[in-house]
């Protein structure tokens, strides 16, 4: 499939925002809030998540052995295991089982259509099982209500857990009234559910074969585990005498004991329930009697005959998974338990749902890994850009998958598979990256923003006037995809580093800090290197100056050297090689300061997050740990100073009634660094309120891109609604501040600008 143009993508996203966004947001954000509550109420949550992850790591590592184990176990129980290489293989096997079953019951050839009832299974969506069975003359009925609605509507799932999440009650009622023409039109969810229950009960009772997925398969006992709320999977598994369970090979876990943390976690992460209504653990063929509704007068308990009647087939699907196992970044995808938490916690997903943020089958953040692994990179390329790397899903994932990293790596691979464009020369001079030709021009531009900013600063204010001129905006939109409705950042002629040097550099800073220290009793023998990230250095120099003044007022001498880029910008565009080189350079530039015991203080949370998260994959372990342990977010650092005796009265303090609304930053939240900023502002006498909206929607360069401008605004408006009317609004991230300034039409400074001595507040 060819990738869409920017304008096709913009149209598609606009359409989804208008048609499906509202219903998706209502349910997904509700699930996410419930998940957060459920996680918060679970004392040993972190231990559970670590345990679950280590079980998955071990299981995927031992997968070939577990496949042999489960074969032995299921066969010993009296069932059959079939390992299918791909979709066609799996579909053909299932069709054969259905045919054999119907022949045995002598219904083939007498005009009856063999029939199958199914419970919800994303794996069968992945292989398009329903279409394959229909082509083989088999009637398939979905029994999960959401899946059945989609079957009636001839639609596709928009969410891994809630497949019909994009449809509202009234849309479903309209669909059903049209299709089933009831005497009294359906209106309430209750009426729709009753109708579905009765309609589907008939199909389940008449079915020849029941097909289910499996959430987990316990290898050594041959136990399949189904986690559901409706009860349809139980009925599909035990009513017909033939049961086919289809599961990806990655669903295998070694033993029953290994199942426990997953049973404890999966409903919490998916919907915020403590446990799902039905956790069905079947080691088929089971002792339960089969139900023959064609023979209503026969008592159902059948003693041992029940067992001998039953036929069970476990189909384990490879379809690319064994290759994913050998591919380091994609391997983690196999730990996924498909709870949908990464979708629910994602601001972009909440706005467009899985029809926008999804590929052929899977949706949400983890879908990039699944689609790249089972359907190929092209399917992932369709939506991969919707992951902004905000990392909110990282704390949501019950098995601690680094979902943003999978997205970054796959983006890099997609970039490298593009053909070089004739217009590459436009950005070549500005982009000293490590990337090959063919990379999207806009990505290359934003990925090299440090160099761009340096050049623009050197020529400011002319560069700003030029950038604002209509013809230039048109050119930027056409070539780089920068939406012309966005205000561009205005570059400062004097960078933060230049300003710092001009006021006397570190010698002057030391003098200022000693003077301040004399006035207080605190003896804080620390020195700081303030990291001049691209925006703080060239665009929003005020927050950098505020940081310097704040630290000096608390008695801390500061240095602001000219330092390399962190690699954050490159990472957000999937330019891993460039980021890798930048990480090495930055570490090298800071190594001496770290050895000298200086603290690295960072204003922009996304740069700190690069050092604390992604650098683990880019630097040797010791280098990563040294930089991580020696670097701090600015307000976190101020919090530490105040805790250690620094005097807050040196700062601009409020009277306790000064209302301030604070919007933290996605990556800052993932690093658990929202709390220190809150604590510092409160300690300094501000009456603080915080936002609960996941994201501002800007996410670095994302909101500048023409195809994503409207999505970015949709996400941003949800945040703006929360803080509209507040007297003072502060935000930690540059792009959060820019987005809020655009939406609220007023200044949104960094918290450090409020705290700095002589603040305007």
């Amino acid at each position: 499939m060819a990738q869409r143009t920017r304008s096709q993508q913009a149209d598609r996203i606009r359409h989804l925002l208008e048609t499906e966004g509202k219903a998706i947001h209502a349910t997904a954000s509700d699930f996410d809030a419930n998940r957060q509550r459920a996680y918060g109420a679970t004392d040993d949550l972190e231990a559970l998540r670590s345990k679950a992850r280590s079980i998955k790591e071990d299981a995927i590592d031992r997968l070939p052995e577990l496949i042999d184990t489960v074969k032995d176990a299921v066969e010993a129980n009296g069932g059959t295991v079939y390992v299918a290489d791909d979709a066609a293989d799996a579909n053909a096997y299932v069709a054969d089982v259905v045919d054999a079953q119907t022949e045995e019951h002598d219904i083939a050839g007498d005009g009856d259509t063999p029939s199958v009832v199914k419970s919800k299974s994303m794996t069968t969506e992945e292989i398009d099982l329903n279409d394959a069975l229909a082509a083989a003359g088999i009637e398939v009925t979905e029994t999960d209500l959401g899946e059945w609605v989609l079957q009636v509507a001839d639609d596709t799932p928009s969410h891994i857990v809630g497949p019909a999440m994009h449809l509202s009650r009234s849309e479903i009622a309209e669909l059903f009234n049209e299709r089933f023409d009831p005497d009294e039109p359906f209106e309430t969810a209750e009426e729709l559910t009753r109708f579905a229950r009765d309609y589907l009960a008939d199909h389940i009772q008449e079915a020849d074969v029941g097909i289910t997925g499996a959430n987990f398969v316990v290898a050594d006992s041959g136990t399949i585990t189904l986690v559901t709320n409706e009860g349809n999977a139980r009925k599909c598994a035990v009513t017909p005498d033939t049961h086919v369970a289809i599961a990806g090979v990655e669903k295998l876990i070694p033993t029953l004991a290994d199942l426990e943390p997953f049973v404890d976690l999966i409903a919490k992460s998916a919907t915020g329930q403590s446990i799902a209504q039905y956790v069905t653990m079947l080691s088929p063929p089971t002792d339960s009697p089969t139900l023959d509704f064609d023979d209503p007068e026969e008592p159902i308990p059948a003693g041992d005959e029940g067992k001998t009647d039953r036929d069970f087939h476990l189909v384990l699907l490879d379809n690319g998974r064994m290759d994913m196992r050998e591919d380091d970044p994609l391997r983690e995808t196999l730990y996924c338990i498909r709870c949908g938490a990464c979708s629910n916690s994602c601001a972009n997903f909440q706005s467009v749902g899985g029809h926008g943020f999804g590929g052929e089958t899977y949706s949400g953040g983890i879908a990039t890994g699944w689609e790249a692994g089972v359907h190929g990179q092209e399917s992932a390329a369709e939506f991969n850009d919707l992951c902004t790397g905000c990392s909110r899903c990282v704390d949501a994932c019950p098995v601690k998958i680094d979902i943003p990293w999978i997205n970054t790596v796959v983006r890099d691979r997609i970039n490298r598979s593009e053909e070089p464009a004739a217009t590459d020369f436009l950005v070549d001079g500005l982009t000293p990256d490590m990337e090959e030709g063919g990379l999207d021009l806009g990505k290359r531009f934003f990925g090299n923003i440090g160099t761009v900013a340096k050049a623009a600063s050197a020529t400011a204010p002319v560069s700003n006037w030029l950038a604002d001129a209509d013809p230039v905006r048109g050119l930027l939109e056409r070539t780089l995809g920068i939406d012309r409705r966005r205000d561009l950042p205005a570059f400062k002629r004097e960078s933060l580093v230049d300003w710092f040097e001009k006021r006397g550099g570190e010698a002057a800073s030391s003098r200022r800090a000693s003077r301040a220290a004399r006035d207080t009793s605190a003896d804080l023998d620390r020195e700081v290197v303030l990291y001049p990230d691209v925006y703080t250095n060239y665009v929003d120099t005020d927050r950098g100056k505020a940081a310097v003044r704040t630290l000096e007022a608390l008695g801390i001498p500061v240095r602001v050297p000219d330092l390399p880029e962190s690699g954050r910008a490159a990472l957000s565009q999937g330019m891993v090689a460039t980021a890798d080189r930048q990480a090495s350079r930055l570490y090298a530039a800071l190594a001496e300061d770290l050895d000298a015991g200086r603290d690295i203080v960072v204003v922009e949370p996304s740069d700190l997050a690069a050092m604390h998260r992604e650098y683990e994959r880019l630097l040797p372990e010791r280098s990563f740990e040294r930089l991580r342990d020696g670097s701090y977010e600015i307000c976190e650092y101020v919090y530490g100073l105040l805790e250690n005796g620094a005097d807050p009265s040196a700062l601009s303090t409020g009277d306790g009634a000064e209302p301030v609304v604070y919007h933290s930053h996605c990556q800052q939240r993932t690093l658990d660094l929202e709390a220190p900023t809150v604590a510092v502002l409160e300690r300094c006498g501000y009456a603080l309120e915080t936002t609960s909206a996941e994201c501002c929607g800007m996410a670095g360069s994302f909101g500048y891109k023409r195809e994503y401008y409207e999505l970015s605004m949709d996400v941003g408006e949800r945040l703006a609604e929360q803080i509209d009317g507040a007297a003072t609004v502060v935000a930690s991230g540059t792009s959060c501040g820019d987005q809020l300034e655009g939406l609220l039409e007023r200044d949104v400074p960094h918290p450090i600008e409020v705290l700095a001595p002589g603040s305007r507040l």
Partner: protein
Amino acid sequence: MTVDTVGRFERALEGLEVGFERVPAADASERIEMIVEEPAVGAPLPFEGVTLPASVTTEPTSADLEAARTGVTPVGFAIAEYGTVAVESTADGAEPISLYPERHVAVVAESDVVPNLSAGFDRLANGFASGQDSVVFATGRSATADMGDLVHGVHGPGDVDVIVLEDR
């Protein structure tokens, strides 16, 4: 098992809007009779001194199962923490009897109420070792939000009652 565990179980069931009754074995039959809505089907109760009331049909036909409004079954154990009952797949049909009718009445011995999921998995492992290797952890009422609002009683029971038999 302590009285606290049963108290915790009761509170969990309350949160799930599941009925809870704690009765001496001798009174169980009478109480079950009061709770069931007829027609009712059931699987035999393996507890000493406890029998199903006559109004509950055992060894039901599939027609009985389809028509039944209540299904009464024993459960192997219960997990207090989450209000979960462990329905075992047995040849007498406890699994379909607990699933098809609109109301499920689960009967459990007080000594079989365990405090938490870990203890539940210990019981599960013991059962697996002795051949009881198909079990449903059922918690609360069947539910769906797929039609746009939360509705109880979809494919499974919309009403659930748990009867805890006091230790003899």
